[in-house]
């Protein structure tokens, strides 16, 4: 009897203690935890480890592979993350909706290393660089299978222009070899407009119709409209050519090299110019730990950390001070860090308003379905 | 058979003969060497894995015969029937129908129909469509089918239920539909697999008589497989007892009951007391047997084959024993005992009498309850005498 009472008392103490422990750790975990939502394969794990070691903040790192996934979470009102990497073209729509907390630049001293040109281009989406800090940037260009292109177009063929895509006679030669293009109006219409010599940022309905007409002509030779399938398809050697994001195409190249399947992938920024895209850090309004988020932004903007990330994922970053620290393979790759001349031909676009958005959506659906 | 016959058949019940057994006595084609059998099993054997279900069996069935195959479950009777229907192939031997070997003929080409124990009515079809199923397979003209279905419905007294579905019928009605369906094609031979098993007792009795009437009126040959000896004895012209894949005895029901040729048949068909003994003497037609329990008993038996000193069994049916309190002085065969048990069964009472002392043998005596008197002449622990005629006992080989 006596022992069982003592046992019960002990149990009660244990429960009380356990509860204190659980609630205590929960409270401190709030401060010591940073929840990041980023694209998959988009950070050097060593950078995360170094951050944790230095600050004592645990990083909960979740990944997505479609911007739409993130946007739906954001629009639904609650994300549960402290730091998100979003594509800049989404910002103009999101900022007025009050989705993000402004960046407290005082807490991010390493922003002094920011690349002014990138800052300036990013400001088109985020006026005054108030909400977004650039992480990585790249271009939308042409990825191709070197051997297959030579087989179809002759040994001297050079892929350096949108001509290969927008001239039906040219593209026809590749049609039974496989051509994928991005299923995204904001990527394909500017390219078509640029090739036609029009303003890639045009919202003029007549211009958009012309671009639509051009895209409609090449449609019979396109095997698939998809925004991610081309990575595997290129890497496996299933297709000849894809319009895609520089980073994805370089990733396909890497995968093919790792698989040793004798598939050689190359990326080209067309000489007419290409669209620039920016993946940037934002802090959502409902972030539980914005301070940790700012600390992380500061941390990855140290030149050596930025270089480490770029070397690992093979993307250009928005940190000019990191450039000398980059490995030559990344720095000298014109697909990653284009020359000044190419850089000057890269363009950015502003988002479509409600009306032009519907126009291009309709045009695009008609192009895709061939109806 | 034609439509007019069917009309004449309608009041079957009224035309039923008073005692089927006595009327059919004259019908004994199996004793007529000139009679052509309808079905012949010739040395048929069927094995399942290691079990021999039917063992080198030979049998002849005659046209218009009502044949019953009786046996315990697992004796091979169902296999025998399924071989006749064509669902099983014999491993050895042959089966003839009208003198033609049908061993290799598939079931759907045999002019034999079967009424399944489960009835196997098609649940998605109406009563009429069930009955018409076989006729449609023959490709008969539509009007002919309609006429035959109506005829069959009348025959089994289900007129008006043509549109019903099988699951909307009572057990008895389902059985009639199954019967009508298997009769619709006018088979040379109708097989009935435990036809009464799913019916309650009252319905079973009346249905038995109806089946017999149908059979004799239609002039068909029936083979019934059953484990119910009453059913077999009531309906059959001739029955066979089957055990371990072999036919132990074939004959008319009364012969099987009164003159079993083996202890197995004697014990399987009806109740029987078995006394073990030794032949003391054979004098003319009287056999004297010395039994351990009842002393010397005399039997009137054609016992030419018996020799003095031989060990035999004497079978005594319970209803052939007389029970009395006083010693029956006149009786040749008598033994004293004590009543151990009295079982009242309504139409008769089964009394168990211990003879030969407390370690002796219990003998069953059946007493017909001829009056409605409740107080009975015998009671537990009464000292009584059992006696029987010399014709009552039968000799069974060891």
């Amino acid at each position: 009897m006596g022992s069982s009472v003592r046992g019960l008392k002990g149990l009660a103490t244990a429960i009380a203690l356990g509860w204190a422990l659980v609630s205590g750790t929960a409270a401190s975990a709030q401060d010591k935890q940073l929840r990041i939502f980023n694209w998959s394969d988009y950070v050097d794990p060593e950078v995360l480890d170094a951050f944790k070691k230095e600050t004592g903040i645990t990083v909960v790192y979740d990944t997505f592979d479609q911007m739409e996934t993130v946007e739906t979470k954001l629009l639904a009102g609650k994300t549960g993350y402290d730091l998100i990497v979003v594509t800049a073209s989404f910002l103009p729509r999101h900022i007025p909706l009050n989705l993000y907390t402004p960046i407290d630049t005082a807490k991010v001293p390493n922003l002094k290393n920011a690349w002014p040109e990138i800052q300036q281009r990013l400001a088109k989406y985020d006026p005054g660089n108030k909400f977004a800090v650039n992480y990585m940037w790249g271009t939308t260009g042409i990825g191709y299978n070197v051997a297959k292109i030579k087989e179809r177009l002759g040994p001297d063929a050079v892929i350096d222009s949108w001509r290969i895509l927008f001239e039906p006679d040219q593209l026809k030669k590749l049609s039974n070899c496989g051509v994928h293009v991005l299923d995204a109006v904001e990527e394909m219409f500017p390219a078509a407009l640029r090739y036609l010599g029009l303003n890639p940022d045009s919202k003029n309905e007549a211009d958009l119709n012309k671009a639509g007409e051009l895209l409609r002509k090449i449609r019979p030779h396109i095997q698939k409209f998809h925004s991610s399938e081309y990575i595997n398809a290129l890497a496996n050697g299933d297709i000849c050519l894809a319009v895609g994001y520089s980073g994805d195409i370089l990733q396909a190249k890497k995968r093919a090299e790792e698989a040793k399947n004798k598939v050689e992938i190359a990326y080209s920024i067309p000489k007419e110019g290409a669209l620039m895209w920016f993946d940037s850090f934002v802090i959502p309004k409902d972030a539980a730990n914005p301070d940790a988020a700012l600390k992380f932004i500061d941390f990855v903007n140290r030149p050596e950390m930025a270089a480490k990330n770029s070397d690992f994922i093979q993307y250009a970053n928005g940190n000019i001070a990191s450039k000398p620290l980059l490995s030559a393979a990344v720095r000298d790759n014109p697909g990653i860090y284009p020359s000044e001349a190419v850089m000057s031909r890269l363009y950015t676009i502003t988002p479509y308003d409600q009306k032009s958005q519907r126009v291009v959506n309709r045009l695009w659906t008609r192009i895709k379905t061939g109806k | 058979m034609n439509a007019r016959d069917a009309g004449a058949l309608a009041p079957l019940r009224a035309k039923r003969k008073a005692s089927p057994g006595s009327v059919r006595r004259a019908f004994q084609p199996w004793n007529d060497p000139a009679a052509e059998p309808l079905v012949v099993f010739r040395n048929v054997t069927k094995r399942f894995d290691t079990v021999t279900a039917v063992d080198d069996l030979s049998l002849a069935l005659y046209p218009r015969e009502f044949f019953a195959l009786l046996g315990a479950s697992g004796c091979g009777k169902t296999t025998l029937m399924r071989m006749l229907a064509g669902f099983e192939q014999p491993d050895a031997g042959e089966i003839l129908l009208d003198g033609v070997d049908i061993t290799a003929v598939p079931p759907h080409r045999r002019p034999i129909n079967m009424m399944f124990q489960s009835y196997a009515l098609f649940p998605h079809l109406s009563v009429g469509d069930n009955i018409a199923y076989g006729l449609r397979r023959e490709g008969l003209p539509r009007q002919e089918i309609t006429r035959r279905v109506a005829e069959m419905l009348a025959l089994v007294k289900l007129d008006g239920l043509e549109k019903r579905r099988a699951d909307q019928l009572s057990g008895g009605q389902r059985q009639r539909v199954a019967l009508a369906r298997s009769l619709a094609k006018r088979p040379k031979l109708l097989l009935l697999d435990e036809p009464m098993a799913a019916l309650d007792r009252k319905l079973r009795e009346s249905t038995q008589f109806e089946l017999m009437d149908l059979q004799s009126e239609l002039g068909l040959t029936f083979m019934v497989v059953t484990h119910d000896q009453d059913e077999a004895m009531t309906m059959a012209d001739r029955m066979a007892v089957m055990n371990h894949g072999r036919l132990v005895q074939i004959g008319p029901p009364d012969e099987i009951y009164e003159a079993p040729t083996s202890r197995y048949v004697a014990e399987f068909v009806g109740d029987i007391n078995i006394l073990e003994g030794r032949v003391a003497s054979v004098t003319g037609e009287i056999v004297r047997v010395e039994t351990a329990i009842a002393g010397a008993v005399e039997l009137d038996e054609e016992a030419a084959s018996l020799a003095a000193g031989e060990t035999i069994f004497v079978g005594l049916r319970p209803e052939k024993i007389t029970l009395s309190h006083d010693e029956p002085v006149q009786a040749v065969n008598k033994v004293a005992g004590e009543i151990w048990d009295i079982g009242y069964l309504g139409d008769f009472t089964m009394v168990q009498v211990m003879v030969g002392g407390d370690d002796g043998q219990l003998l069953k005596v059946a007493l017909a309850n001829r009056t409605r008197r409740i107080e009975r002449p015998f009671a537990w622990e009464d000292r009584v005498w059992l006696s029987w005629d010399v014709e009552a006992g039968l000799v069974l080989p060891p």
Partner: protein
Amino acid sequence: MRTGNAPTRRLGRLVVAVPYLWLLLFFLAPFAIVLRMAFSDAATDLPPYAPHFQGFSQLGEFIAALDLENFRLLGDDPLYWQSYLYSLRIAALTTLIALAIGYPLAYAMASAPRRWQSLLLVLVILPFWTSFLIRVYAWIGILRPEGLLDMVLAGTGVTSEPLRLLNTEAAVLIGMVYSYLPFMVLPLFATLQKLDRSLLEAAADLGAPAWTAFATVTLPLSIPGILAGSALVFIPAVGEFVIPDLLGGPDTVMIGKVLWSEFFSNRDWPLASAVAVVLLFVLVAPLALLQRARLTRGGAA
């Protein structure tokens, strides 16, 4: 006695209420939300549609702002109804092919010895133990140019050129039939296994050769299984999104993909909701017809 029963009866009523509560909570409520969205307009807002419910005082204005505009668009733009029709066509083809393959499969399984049946059943269900997405991806590996299929066909000398099946309607159908086949086989197997074999013997006994017995007994008695299997395949097949997305090409635009791009790419939640509402009715209509057919069949008997 009567009073003693009262709590039991109340409990009984509660038990009956649970499934209805479930339906209300997890079917009707979400449907109401989707329906309300379908009557709204797309807007740059959070969430991205208007009007928002501002409380009961402004209920009148709220209701006045709802309209049928999205449904009108679905009717006007051939893209949408063509996608619906195409989805129905693909789903119907999938169902028919799955039935043609699944019936013999289920029949063979039901005819197999009892002790094998559970093993065969496991083999049918086995693919479910791996991710659906991985199985569809595996088909990319099989169907892609110079993939497994091409290698086998070229190796056996059947074809010399790659078939280029990937990103065609044929590839979508292959993927759909493969993925949904178990949903056809399982109910068919259950029905055929229950089928009383003595019915087939009775049919044979009455003069039906094997094929006739199948057509007049097995087939009509397996109709419930055929209907159940077809419904299980057809309904999810109409709304299928992943398979046409991965295996299909620009020509295989099914309504699921249209819904996806309206919702995610175009951020037009109201239009996507309207697409979903119409899809629901497109699916419910044949089911209701089926149910009615079954009821009248039962009633006539």
